[in-house]
Each structure stands twice: as structure tokens, then as C-alpha cells.
């Protein structure tokens, strides 16, 4: 338990650092970020007078309180779940994010789970069947690993998307058919949501699976050289038991590296949502950036950070569960 609490401490600290950085940055950057931001935005016609006031307030200009007081009230509000007010949507940031979150979390959880399970399984098989035709997965996976998520999204839209030009198999815009169905517990809506999730999910899976494949394959190859795997073979255990012995051990470092993996998947998914106009927090982050809705940007950033930290904590718990050594230390 102690090790887990320690990790939890790191995550709380990380959340605090992230929040503080996003609060402090606009206030310490040299020059006048408000003027620059407003100038940029008014060029594109996105910023009205209401926007200027909101931006100034958000960035701490023309307010008569000290930075410290602003900070204390900001943190205090956060602690109460108050993430501020979005001028562009004219709604509390918290409730806005809550309405975006199911889209993002649904996509993230499903895609990451499929990708992790499939990638790990393929990695295990690749290591097991070293030297067979399966080895060809390696260069293919390397190439896929190198594809930026949003570029893959563009390619998939072009080939399979209804907004593309080739096959037009799957919807590739929005989270559901906003013209034909009404959100709610009705079958057409559910069907629409599911069919709209196919391409974004496939994009995230395809883009992230290669990383899991390569990581697991390399770990597996290294683990299979360990004595206990040789001994398992010497014991005449069935092949699948031997694979299980090796795989369970190879999985440990992969899980402890989940931090990196999940950060990259989340980052990739933000861009994928933008390409698909998928109504999750990634797309709205992009939207808010364009509208200079800093409250919303900051709120979304904090929430994304919390999601990633939660995923890390989950990985830590799983690690402790499957490694008796960590269990003892924990």
C-alpha cells in the first residue's frame, strides 16, 4: 500500500504542477499576451468585446487583485469543481466538459483496451514465432508506429469515410448524425453513435497498437531467455503454459511504461477527434483555442491531465496486483 500511496502522491503533485503552470504561464510571459491573443483572434473575426473582457479576466489583466489572490481563488474554485465560465458557450466550463467527456472516455477506453490486448497478444506471438513469416509484422508495425495519429485519420477518412472520396463506407464527421437522429435512449441514436465511432476508434487502435506490439515483442524476446522459461521447457510444460510464464513476466515492464503509452494515446486522440469533428474534449480544446476561450482551454487541460493520471494510477494498481514482489513492497 505504501508504494501505491507514494505514486498517488506523485500524481497529486503532478496535477498541482499542471494546474499551476497553466495558471501562471499567461501571467509571467513577457509582453502582453492579451493584446497578442486578441489581435490574433480579431484578425480571424473570432473575438468580440465580450471575448476581450473574458480573455483579460482569464489572463489576469485589468483586475485589481494580486496574482497570489487570483491563484488562491482559482485553486479554491477548482477544489469545488468550479472550472470557470466559458464565454464562447456561455456556460460553466465544468458542465461543458462533463458533456464532452463521455465521447472522449468511451473512445479512449474502448480503443486503448482493444489496442493493448491485441498489441500484447500479437507481440507475444511474434516473440514466440521468431523467424517465421510473422516477423514481417515488425517492419509494418514500425511504419505504423511512426504514422502520426491525425495523418492516419486523414488517410482513413479519404479511403473509408463518407466525407472522403473513395469507398464512403463509414460516417466520418461528428459523433452521431446530427441531422437525422435525436440524442436519447433510442435505437437510431445508439446505432448512429456506434457507426460514427468506428473510424475514430479504428484510427486510434491502428495508430497505437504498433507501439504495444513492439514493446511486448521486445520484452518477450528478452524474457524468454530467462532461466525460468528454459526451466519451464525443461519441465515439459505445455507450450501455452510456457508462453504464459514468459508473457506474465514480460508484461510487467510494459505496464510500468503505460505512463508513456497512455500520454501518447491521449495526445493522438485529441488530434483524431479534431479530424473527425468528434464531440469529445479534444475537439473542443481545438475549438476553444480558436475562440480564445481560455477558461475552457485551461479546464480541458486540467481534465485531460487528471484522466492521464487516473490511467497511470490504474496501471500502478494492476502492476501491484500481478507482481508479488511489488505487492510485498506495496
Amino acid at each position, binding site marked *: 500500500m505504501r508504494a501505491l500511496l507514494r505514486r498517488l502522491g506523485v500524481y497529486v503533485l503532478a496535477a498541482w504542477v499542471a494546474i499551476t503552470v497553466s495558471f501562471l504561464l499567461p501571467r509571467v510571459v513577457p509582453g502582453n499576451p492579451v493584446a497578442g491573443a486578441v489581435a490574433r483572434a480579431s484578425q480571424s473575426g473570432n473575438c468580440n468585446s465580450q471575448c476581450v473582457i473574458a480573455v483579460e479576466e482569464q489572463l489576469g489583466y485589468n483586475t485589481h487583485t494580486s496574482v497570489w489572490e487570483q491563484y488562491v481563488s482559482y485553486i479554491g474554485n477548482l477544489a469545488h469543481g468550479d472550472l470557470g465560465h466559458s464565454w464562447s458557450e456561455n456556460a460553466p466550463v465544468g458542465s461543458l466538459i462533463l458533456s464532452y467527456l463521455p465521447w472522449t472516455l468511451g473512445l479512449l477506453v474502448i480503443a486503448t483496451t482493444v489496442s493493448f490486448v491485441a498489441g500484447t497478444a500479437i507481440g507475444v506471438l511474434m516473440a514466440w514465432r521468431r523467424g517465421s513469416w510473422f516477423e514481417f509484422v515488425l517492419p509494418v508495425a514500425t511504419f505504423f508506429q511512426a504514422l502520426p495519429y491525425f495523418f492516419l485519420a486523414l488517410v482513413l477518412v479519404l479511403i473509408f469515410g463518407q466525407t472522403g472520396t473513395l469507398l464512403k463506407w463509414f460516417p466520418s464527421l461528428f459523433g452521431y448524425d446530427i441531422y437525422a437522429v435525436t440524442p436519447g435512449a433510442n435505437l437510431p441514436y445508439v446505432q448512429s453513435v456506434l457507426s460514427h465511432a468506428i473510424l475514430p476508434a479504428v484510427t486510434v487502435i491502428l495508430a497505437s497498437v504498433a507501439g504495444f506490439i513492439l514493446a511486448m515483442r521486445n520484452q518477450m524476446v528478452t524474457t524468454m531467455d530467462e532461466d*525460468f522459461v528454459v526451466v519451464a521447457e525443461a519441465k515439459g510444460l505445455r507450450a501455452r503454459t510456457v508462453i504464459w510464464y514468459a508473457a506474465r513476466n514480460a508484461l510487467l515492464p510494459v505496464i510500468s511504461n503505460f505512463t508513456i503509452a497512455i500520454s501518447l494515446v491521449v495526445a493522438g486522440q485529441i488530434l483524431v477527434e479534431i479530424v473527425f469533428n468528434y464531440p469529445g474534449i479534444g475537439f473542443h480544446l481545438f475549438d476553444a483555442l480558436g475562440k480564445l476561450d481560455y477558461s475552457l482551454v485551461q479546464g480541458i487541460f486540467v481534465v485531460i491531465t487528471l484522466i492521464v493520471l487516473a490511467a497511470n494510477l490504474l496501471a500502478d494498481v494492476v502492476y501491484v496486483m500481478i507482481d508479488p514482489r511489488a505487492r510485498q513492497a506495496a
Partner: protein
Amino acid sequence: MTIDSTTLTQAPVAGPTPEPILRTARIVRLPRSPKVIAGLVILAVFGVVAIIGRWISPYSPNQTDPQNWVQHVLVPGTGPGTGFPANYYPLPFPPSSAHWLGTTVFAQDVLSQVLASTQATLFVGLLAAAIATCLSILFGVSAGYFGGGTDEVLSLVSNVFLAIPGLPLLIVLADYVPTAGSSIFLVAIIIAVTAWAYSSRVLRAQTLSLRNRDFVEAARVSGEGRIRIIVVELLPNLIPIVAASFLFTTLYAIYAYVAIAFLGLGGSPTSSPPGLWNWGEMLREGFANNAIRGGWWWWWAPPGLCVALLGTGLALLNFGIDEFINPRLRAAGLTRRAAKKAGIVSRAKLGMTPVAAHHAQAVSRSQAGITASREVGPEPVLEIRGLCVDYGYGEEAVHAVVDCDLVLRRGRVLGLAGESGSGKTTLALAAIRLLRSPAVITDGQVLFHSKPVGGEGPSGTIDMLAADADTLRAVRWSEISVVLQSSMNALNPVISIGAQFDDMLRVHRPHLSRTARHEMSGAMLELVGINPDRLRSYAHELSGGMRQRAMIAMALALEPQVMILDEPTTALDVVTQREILEELIGLRDRLGFAALFITHDLSLLVEIADEIAVMYAGRLMERAPAAALFNAPRLPYTHGLIHCFPPMHGQRSRMDGIPGSPPDLRALPKGCAFNPRCAWALDQCRHDVPHLAPLNGSAREVACWLHRGDAKVPAELARPDPVIVAERGSVAPPGNLARPPHEVGR
């Protein structure tokens, strides 16, 4: 783009440690694999384009080409019937001879944009990676080297940065720094700030493991300053890891730059102050101007493919470095081509050492040897005839075991001695086909004459080299079990001891009930002096000696006829060593299994073995009854080995050791492999390989020219055989569990 190299993985408590990097390995000598070459070529092409791109680009990237700006399309929602005035926009041109990669919707040349973009993208990637690598060295190495409070603080900082998702932080940073778009230096710095933490963690772990190495200790003792130790002693050894993380970070930085440019935070080349052309900006413009909907793939596909290709190049190079750091990744499996070249029939399978096809011919040849069994004594249980094992295939093959004959008799202990690298373990593990690729059995025969003790398991003579996987699995452990040197790693660390017993019993004794299996496991632990409660324990909860005992208990559980003991006590302290040895002898006497006991310690062998065989450079060099070999060696090498270790009992004598070092199997000396280290080497020894042959009528064999022809045998090698040997050879009836010459313990 997820996790990079595995070897950079430093799990806090688990996971394999990277292979030790020797102090001399200062330069990353990349394996010359197709992967690395492909990676280098890709990087070189991009590097050249980044430098000369500006000059070879046919147009300016911003320049519109009105000449070709002729096609126009109606903007949807405008024109007749919509109430809006008709609005047209130009249609980009697909690739043509004038524009190799077509044009953008602004009639700009895509190729020129790609060429111009390469420079900024690559520059930002490399600069950010350089800054991030410096940061990670600063944080990681200091944390690892100084330890204590410094480590706590620095590790906490890097863990915090690692936990914060990079790209969102990057977006916020880039967005709040309004000038970021126009300064690629600023962009690179911002990216570096979000990218250094992972490498820092890896470097810290590696520094920790290097910190206590001999050469660092030596430098510390000799009074070198801390900074000097870090720079001169540690950093050169971290080069492979630094290089790997540099490549990884470059990859990450390029993605990050492309991503923030795609979000419009990288500064537009047409705004003021102008940003630089980069691949992300090209993708953004394409995406924002409906290039997907329009099907204008030539606009956005090239920059995307460039990112992917450059990423692949970096990843391939990283593979090369990974394989340098962790050679296990390099020893590729037996590819079909290599297998064909080596003439291997059976498909390479893990746990089934492949056997070269032409070994079949050898069978008939060695058949003669079996019928004319020279030695007397109990019937043989494991016969190894003319066994040859190579590592690698074709011309690169290293001959690790050459033409070895060994006969293990029922209930006897056969010792196999030699320095490390002499092929002892290879020989023993090849006999039960446990060796991994790239090991290949190229010749010989291994016969196992099985008479299962409990009546279960296969019986009759089994040709181990011809056996299929199922037969091998049935024989393994049930009839031939193995105890490896390092029990530390022989037990699965994440499964309890009891579960490991259970897995093994379930396979070989399927009729036993769960409780019966549990009882049996407990009884076996008790047999080796461990409390049966320990079945619930995990390997890390047991001491080294207990782990080895548990392994021995497991190895005995199925009453095997043969036990292969590969340096079972070497990793233990002397007291535990003795206890376990005595236990083994007692168990051997009680259970009557035959044992092949491998060690480099002859004085230990002579106490438990009936017969000893000595190996050198992959060949058997001397074989004799234990006492005879120990007290009156005939081989100069054996003489040297005996004088390496003080005897456990008896008179004190001078320890000479053997001059020189074990031979490199890839470059064996001509003639007898031992001749450069031999005090009595003859001329003949430098030219002809001696073969094992009986020594004038006695029960012993030696491969040495000193004992052939009319060479004068040195006095050291001509001591009379101890009398006891002759007695034992004739008196011991077959099947009798003869006590070893020197009784030990009990």
C-alpha cells in the same frame, strides 16, 4: 508511436536488467543489419534534403502559380438559387510535369513546400531532442550518481513531468507564448521541456547500476572528482542509452512539432511575423481547406508520409541501438533461409533445439560405438555419441561442442568439468534439446534408455535427436530433470512455488487430484528440508539456498532416472554449497537417479562423481574414474584445473592455476586447443588435433599427444593410478548405487 525500446525500460522492481556494458564499449558499434542500414539511408536522405532543399526546390513555397490557376469550382452554398453571389475557388492541380506533387488550392507547388518544410521540421526535432537529452542527462545522471536526497528530489521532478501528458501541456504552453509560432527556437525549447522526463528516468536507472561497478569505485578510491567521474567514467558507458533516447526524443519532438503546427500553433508562413514552412503546417492547410473532402491527396499525403518515413528511419536506427544494448534481441530466430542453409529439417521451435538434416548419416556410424560399449559397470541410461553443436549457421557457425561421447550409467554420477565457455552446459542441454536458437545440433546421437521408476512415463530407448515435441515433453522432467546454476532466476518470480509444482505435476501426473498434488509438493519440500508452508511463498521470499533446494525438490518430484545438475551450487556460499551437496548425495543414494554433474570445481566433483570427464574448447579431453583423474591426471589441462582449487580434504599443495585465458571459440589455435597454455606442448600439439583414446588398457581415456608415441611423459602426468579405481570398476555390479570414492557427510 508508443513505447520505444524495451531495454530502456527500467521497471522499478521487475524486468530484466540490460546486459552489462563493458567499459571498453565506448563507441556504439551498430549491428550491420538491414534494419539499421535502411534507417541510416532514410535519415541521410532527409538530412540532405533539409540542407539543400531550398536550392533544389523548383518554386518558392509561397509563390502562387497564376498560370495554372485556371480551374475553379463553385463554393457550395453560393451561386444561383442560394441567395448568395456565386463564389468560386480554384481547384488544386494533381501531380503533373510542371508540379511533380501537384499544387495546393492556392496554386502553390507542393513539392517546393515539402522541400522547404523538411528543414524546419528536422531542425526543430533535432534541436528539441538535443535540449531534452541535455536536460535528461543533467537530471538522470545526477540523480543516479549522487543518490540520497538529490535523487529523491530529481526523481520526483522527472516523475511529475512524466505523468503530465506532454501534448496537452505543449498546446497550453504554445498557446500562451504568443511569439512561439514565429521562433522555432522557442518551439524547440517548449517541446524539450515536455520531452525530457522519460529519458531522464532511464538514464537514472542505468547510472544507478553503473555507479557501483568496479571501475567507478576504482576512480572514486583514486580520488577523482565527482564531476570528472561522471564525465570520464560514467557518460561514455551511457552513450548507447543516450543515443537511443536522443533518437526517441527526436521522433517525439517531430511529432509534437507537427501536431502543434497542425493545431495552428506553429505560426503560419503567411502571417506576420511569418512562421516557417513545416509538415504540420502543410497538413493543417490541407485539412482546413477541405483537401480530404476534395480528394486532393497529393496536397496532404506527402507531408504525412514524410513524417511517417522519417519516423520509421529513426525507429529502425533505434532498433539497432536496442540490439546493441540488449544482444538478446539481436540473436534472431532461425529464419527459414538460415535453416535451409544449415540443412535443418524440423521447424525451429522454442525449447526444441533444431537438428541438422545430415545428422541421420551419423546415426549409423555411431551405432557401432553403442554395441561395443567399452566400459564395464551398470547399464547406460543416457548415451551421447559424437555430439556436435554449433552456434549460428553456415560459415559464421561457432563450434561449441565437437564430437563428444559420454555415457551416463544408471545410478551413477558423471562429472563434467571445465572452465566456463568450454561447452559443458551446451553439451548437457543439447542432449535434451533445451538449447535455444541459434544453437543447432549438427551431428551425433543421443539415446535415452528409459525404465521409468514409477512405471509412468515413456519407456524403451528414445532417440532424443529424432524425438518429436510430444515425446520430448513426456521425457522431460518426468525422466530427465535439470537443475540450473542460478536458482535465483530458475523459479518464475510471479508465481508461487506451489503453483509451479502444480503446473508441473498436472502435466506429468494428470490423474492426481488437486489435494494429492499439493501433498506431494509439500512432501518434496520436506525432503529437502523446507517447511511445506513455503509452497505459498514466491521466489523472492526465499534465500538463495532455499531456492536451490526448492528447485532440487521440484527436479526430484517425478522420480527421474537422470538429473542434469548444471553448477547447482556455484552461486551459493560455501556453507550452503556443502549442505546442498550432501543432501544431493543422500538423495541420490536413496532414490537412485543417475546424475550428470557439471562444474568447474574438480575438487568438488571428486567427492561425488564416479567418473569425471574434462572438457576444453568444446571437446572432451580426458575421461577417467573420479579418483584416478583427480589423483593422477594424465592431461596437462586437468592437472592445471586440479591445481586451481584447494582440495576440500587432504594435504595442502601449491596452487598454480593455468596461465592464459580460455580460448576464443571463434579463433581456436591450430592443433590441440590447449597448446598455447600448455607447459609441455610438443611440436605435434601445434599441428594436429588429438582425439580421445584409451590409455594403455586402463579404464581411462585422454586426448593428448604426450601420451602417444614415444614422447616423454612429464612426471606430473604419470602418477600411478590409485588402487581403489581398479576395484570399483570390476566389483560394482550393474544397478548398484556405488558410493562415491570419498564419502561425504551423512
